[in-house]
């Protein structure tokens, strides 16, 4: 049959016949085939281990970036509380980029998970075929003359050979995809390195290239919206600014004594003495 299937079949079959041509003696063919099959199975196991490693690496990055998102959000609030709106904006822009990265990472982790499942499935199929081949090998040795054995070996080895070629193809595709993701993961790591700013004041002065890139990148409406929302939340922020300027890392750390310690997260907003007109 011509068409997609015809061409693919021809290629696979020529590979299998090359494999079978390697030995003339039936016994030798059997041993050679079986040995090749076991080698291939080891390769598949290594391939699965590689995919699992790549997946774990991406999952670790995902966690780091999730922590960064929280940190950047906190930093934006702190910056806004002390009246540094530019700094708050930079933090929110970075948070935006980090969140986009999170989505990409999540997608890639799912893809790797899928690959891992496919390869595991392939490995089990190959294992079953190798086991069936091993059994058949013994039957062929015991029951058939050399001439008959040659025919039987071809039949059995063709099935395993095709499965091996197929697993080889699945492996190649998994490796290609994993390589693409490794490149992506490296790019994410660079972002991580530039991501948070540990010293709030240090960034107030100068602007590095990441800042400029971020500014260009920023879907600034999203950032503007979030900034506005944050401002509204920090409505009575003048008092908080004072506390932060006095050196508090956490807005809640130096909570003014309130009547009942009612468990509020943002006590300064609720303290009536500091209330300001809306906006």
């Amino acid at each position, binding site marked *: 049959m011509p068409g*997609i299937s*015809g061409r693919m079949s021809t*290629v696979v079959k020529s590979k299998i016949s090359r494999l079978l041509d390697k030995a003339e003696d039936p016994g030798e063919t059997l041993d050679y085939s079986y040995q090749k099959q076991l080698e291939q199975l080891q390769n598949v196991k290594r391939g699965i281990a590689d995919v699992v490693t790549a997946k774990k690496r991406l999952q670790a990055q995902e966690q780091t970036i999730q922590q960064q998102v929280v940190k950047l959000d906190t930093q934006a609030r702190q910056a806004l509380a002390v009246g540094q709106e530019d700094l708050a904006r930079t933090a929110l822009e970075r948070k935006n980029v980090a969140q986009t990265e999170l989505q990409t990472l999540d997608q890639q982790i799912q893809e790797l998970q899928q690959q891992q499942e496919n390869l595991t499935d392939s490995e089990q199929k190959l294992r079953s*075929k190798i086991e069936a081949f091993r059994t*058949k090998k013994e039957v062929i040795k015991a029951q058939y003359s050399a001439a008959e054995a040659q025919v039987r070996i071809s039949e059995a080895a063709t099935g395993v050979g*095709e499965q091996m070629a197929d697993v*080889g193809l699945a492996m190649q595709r998994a490796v290609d995809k994993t390589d693409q993701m490794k490149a992506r993961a490296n790019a994410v790591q660079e972002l991580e390195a530039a991501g948070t700013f540990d010293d709030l004041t240090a960034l107030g002065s100068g602007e590095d290239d990441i800042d400029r890139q971020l500014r260009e990148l920023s879907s600034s409406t999203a950032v503007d919206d979030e900034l506005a929302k944050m401002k509204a939340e920090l409505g009575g922020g003048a008092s908080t600014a004072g506390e932060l300027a006095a050196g508090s890392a956490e807005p809640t750390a130096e909570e003014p004594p309130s009547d009942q310690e009612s468990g509020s997260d943002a006590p300064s907003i609720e303290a009536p003495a500091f209330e300001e007109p809306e906006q």
Partner: protein
Amino acid sequence: MIVRIATEGQYEISDEQKLSELDTAAVAAAESGDEVTFHAAYDALLAFVRSGAQLDADHLGGSDLILPPPDVTLAEARAEFSGEGLLPN
């Protein structure tokens, strides 16, 4: 007839005429050069093959036909016709 979907498994198909029609349609779609058209046609071919009985993992026979993997791209499918092939050497 035994058909393998590469990276997936082997199926037993009886309606060879239908298989041939769908295969020809997939080739025509690939030649149209449009990824969406190609995948629609190729997915139809795969769905037909999957409607056959799947063979056990310990079945030792070869296949009469082998189809490229389900996630094959248009570029890969076209390379397949031109003779480069998908399989590693």
